[in-house]
């Protein structure tokens, strides 16, 4: 079925007004040899049939709510989403609107983005936020674009910590392949026990940007203040890729002196959705605002003296600056920025701290119990947030398969990206994991340990 409301008699009347006999006549300009191809697609479904087909596809997955107990994180996390978030997202006034280019009839979207920007600044300790990027990985790549524009190509080196998410590092490489940059530091053979200060050695007068992650890919929390100071001493900028839930509890990258703070906003009220769409947040200092990509909402007044909001500094963007723009971004993640704003509003100051503390305590309980098992142990000694690396006495693949048999989605196999961490499992624990679930994980892994 279609959603076309034109009746046959209306169509006839319209064709007469246009001055053609039949609809096909409108396509005379299309090369005849290729006109009206027969498409081999399945027969059209009614809404009832489509609902059933999609229902079957969805039902054939095993979910982390009901089917499996999940300890899988590595960039996307299973958090609770208050009901109110989706009720707001489902308002057609928000989700069926376009980018707010006509501010007189878009103040809902504009004020919501302005509040989102404010919330992200509050969370990261930064001064300016844009209206979003596609995800955490592309936001990190856009940090390179900012630095490149800031130095106008006069510096050519980017230092990336090996403990930045492997997929983020891959995306940064893809994005920068035409820019003639040197990426250093992210050697998978690097000493992963060495503290963040070890990266300072890579930063020199040719370095435009240093990128670190907080907590890092292994869940570890470091105070980057000294590293950032060292990088600034060489004139380089520093980007911190941060987990927004951790920021409820821990010192902000803003306090540490970061120039850019980006990250994956999915933990803030966005479902896992098999990896997307999610939200890339991007915050920086006011002095870099002209080099920041993406849309930006600013406060102003309208002709009636009312406080109002508009897209501002738009001449930075691709539709005006074209090939000289910092980035080509146009569509962003507007609706998911709204989801995060609603989430942060309703969870609020107390709720977000509570979520972060629950994650912390449960992850530490799990780590403590698991590290007691024979042949297993925590890989690193640094403080961690809600994710930790567990050393096993056999291949992760084998252990995860065993866990899956017991309905447990194990962690991430670190050996895929770090040869030195063969047989290491990255385990994530959130507020969604009960003590019983953690005990079940410990119990099954105890069996594995004794096998």
């Amino acid at each position, binding site marked *: 079925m279609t959603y076309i409301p034109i009746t046959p008699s209306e169509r006839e009347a319209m064709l007469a007004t246009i001055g053609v006999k039949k609809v096909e006549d409108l396509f005379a300009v299309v090369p005849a040899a290729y006109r009206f191809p027969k498409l081999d697609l399945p027969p059209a479904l009614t809404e009832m049939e489509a609902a059933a087909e999609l229902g079957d596809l969805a039902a054939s997955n095993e979910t982390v709510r009901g089917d499996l107990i999940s300890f899988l994180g590595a960039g996307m996390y299973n958090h609770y989403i208050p009901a109110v978030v989706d009720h707001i997202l489902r308002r057609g006034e928000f989700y069926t609107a376009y980018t707010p280019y006509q501010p007189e009839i878009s103040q809902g979207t504009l004020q919501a983005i302005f509040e989102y920007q404010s919330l992200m600044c509050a969370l990261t300790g930064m001064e300016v936020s844009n209206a979003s990027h596609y995800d955490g990985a592309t936001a990190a790549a856009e940090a390179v674009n900012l630095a490149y524009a800031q130095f106008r190509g006069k510096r050519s080196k980017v230092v990336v910590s090996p403990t930045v998410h492997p997929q983020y590092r891959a995306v940064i490489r893809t994005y920068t392949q035409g820019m003639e940059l040197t990426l250093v530091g992210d050697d998978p053979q690097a000493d992963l026990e060495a503290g963040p200060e070890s990266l300072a050695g890579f930063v020199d007068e040719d370095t435009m940007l240093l990128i670190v992650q907080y907590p890092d890919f292994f869940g570890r929390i470091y105070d980057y203040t000294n590293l950032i100071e060292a990088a600034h001493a060489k004139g380089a900028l520093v980007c911190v890729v941060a987990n927004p839930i951790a920021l409820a509890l821990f010192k902000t990258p803003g306090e540490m002196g970061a120039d850019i703070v980006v990250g994956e906003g999915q933990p803030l009220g966005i479902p896992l959705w098999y990896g997307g769409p999610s939200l890339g947040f991007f915050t920086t200092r006011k002095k870099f605002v002209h080099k920041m990509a993406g849309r930006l909402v600013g406060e102003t007044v309208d002709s009636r003296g009312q406080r109002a909001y508009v897209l501002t*500094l738009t*001449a*930075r963007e691709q539709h005006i*600056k074209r090939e000289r723009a910092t980035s080509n971004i146009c569509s962003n993640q507007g609706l998911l920025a709204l989801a995060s704003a609603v989430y942060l509003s309703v969870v609020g100051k107390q709720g977000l701290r509570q979520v972060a503390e629950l994650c912390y305590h449960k992850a530490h309980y799990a780590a403590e119990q698991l590290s007691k098992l024979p042949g297993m142990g925590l890989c690193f000694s640094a403080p961690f947030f809600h994710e930790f690396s567990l050393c096993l006495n056999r291949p992760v693949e084998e252990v995860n398969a065993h866990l899956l048999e017991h309905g447990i989605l194990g962690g991430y196999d670190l050996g895929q990206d770090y040869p030195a961490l063969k047989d290491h499992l990255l385990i994530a624990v959130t507020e969604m994991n009960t003590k019983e679930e953690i005990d079940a994980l410990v119990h099954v892994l105890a069996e594995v340990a004794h096998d």
Partner: protein
Amino acid sequence: MTNIPSNLKYTKNDEWFDPASGKMGLSDYAQAQLSDIVFVEILVGEGDTLQAGQAVASVESVKAAAEVYAAVGGKVVKVNETLADAPETLNSDPYGAGWVIQIEDGDASGLMDASAYEKYCAERAH
């Protein structure tokens, strides 16, 4: 009316150059086309040697973006650092406080004089 001082020389990209002082900037016509300028970034530094036509500044208004090109070749002796904090000066005083850079020993022989530039502006208005 567009203000076109007779003592200055002009480029097709709407820069002005003052052979007496060596200063250059954006013409009144250009600032009016761009409308309210909100950002200026000077891309060259004191001591740089420029080729005529090389980009020397990047300008953004509320609705447009433009590059300012060197009206003449030569050595940059001074850049107008006050523009960064007061980009609106390019609108309010394009030939005075809104100068962009000062160039030493620039050769203005290839540039338009005021009457040729006035004709050039009038042509584009229609």
